Structure formats: C-alpha cells, structure tokens
C-alpha cells in the first residue's frame, strides 16, 4: 500500500503529458512567430504561422484518431466510426499538402517558414521531455 501513492502520483503526472504538449505548442508558436518576424521578416513569419496552425491541427487530429483506434482495439464503445477514423487520418496529409500548395503558389519565399512550422510538435515534445526530466529530478528520481 505505501508504494501505491507515488505510482498514482506519477500516473496522474504522465496522463497529463498530452495536454501539456498542446499547451507547449500554444506557447511556443507565438514566441517563434514573433522571433521569425523580427529576424527574417513578415513573409517567413506568415509561413511559420501557417505551418504552426497545420501542425497543431495535425497533432489534434492524430490524438483523436489514436483515441478512436485505441477504443476499438480495447473493445470499448467508440463514438467515432471506422470510416471517420480512417478519413481523418488521411485528411491530415491532405491538409498539409493543401497548405504547402497554397504557400507555394501565393508566396514561395515563405515556404521555409511553413516547413519550420511543421516541426512545432517536435519542439513541444522536446519541451515536455525536459519538463519531465526536471520533475523527476525535483522528486528525487
């Protein structure tokens, strides 16, 4: 029984990782856009903003798709249909392709910003990893 308390605490801590990653993305995006605007100009900043929006929607849909998939794999009642899960999974790629096409046709100069913006989830996951390391060190591993 005494071992259960830390396990419950750490389980609660790790269950909030996805929400923290989304919050990291919401905080990182404006900071990176402002820094890009200041350093590389408005076109790159607009491209980065597009990339961040696409990456955020992409991550949100990925989470919803995985939730539906896990519901089905675990045998739980899922609110999403199988067609909806598959179409949402494929729609993510269509969304990225449309965003890249729009940027390429409207302003090719901001393509670098768009590509950089697509890495927003990776930056947020890296921030989460650093935060978890800090929290583990603070708890005394």
């Amino acid at each position: 029984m005494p071992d259960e308390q830390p396990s419950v605490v750490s389980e609660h801590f790790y269950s909030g990782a996805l929400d923290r990653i989304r919050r990291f993305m919401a905080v990182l995006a404006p900071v990176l856009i402002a820094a890009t605007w200041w350093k590389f100009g408005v076109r790159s900043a607009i491209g980065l903003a597009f990339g961040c929006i696409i990456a955020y929607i992409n991550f949100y849909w990925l989470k919803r798709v995985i939730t539906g998939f896990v519901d089905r794999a675990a045998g739980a009642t899922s609110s999403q249909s199988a067609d909806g899960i598959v179409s949402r999974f494929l729609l993510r790629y269509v969304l990225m392709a449309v965003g890249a096409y729009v940027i390429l046709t409207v302003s090719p100069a901001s393509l670098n910003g768009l590509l950089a913006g697509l890495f927003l989830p990776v930056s947020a996951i890296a921030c989460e990893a650093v935060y978890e390391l800090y929290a583990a060190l603070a708890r005394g591993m």
Partner: protein
Amino acid sequence: MRTLSKLFLVLSVLSFAVPAFAQGGGSSEVNWVAISAGFSMAFASGICALAQGKATAAAAEGLARNPAARPGIQLALILGLALIESLALYTLVIIFAKVK
C-alpha cells in the same frame, strides 16, 4: 499478392529503362540531385510507413493483451507516430534545401 509484387517490380524496372534508352544525344545532363532527392523521399516515406505500421501493430497487440495499460500505450503511440512523421518531414526539408 506475389503477382502484384512481381508487377510492381517489372514496372519499377521499366521506369528505369525509359530514360536509359532515351539517352543518345549526349547534350542533356542528368539532374542527379533531383533523382537522388526523389529516391530519398521515397525511401523515407516507405520506411516511416513501415515504422508507423509496426508501432500501431505493437500498440494493438499490447492493448489486446492488457487493456488496463491503455493510457500509457495511447500516449506512447501518439508521441511515436508524431516523431516518426517528423522524420519524413526532416527528409522533405533537406530535399527542399538541396534541390532549390
């Protein structure tokens, strides 16, 4: 399935054969950067697709064995798929940087 894989193999060989026979003038230069960029993206996409399939299959197997481990498996699967996708994006960025 074997017939289909043989068909794809023949088609891929034929796609090489057409430009090979087209050479003759000697004046046109082959754009090796574009060719290698195409191959790089194809390899990256294929290997990332295999990795995503393997990760999803392992998650489904783990869930079927132990449904109580759902939160941990779900988190690991989401992060794993996001990071695998980013590997294909890294390749795309490198290709854009080199081909431009």
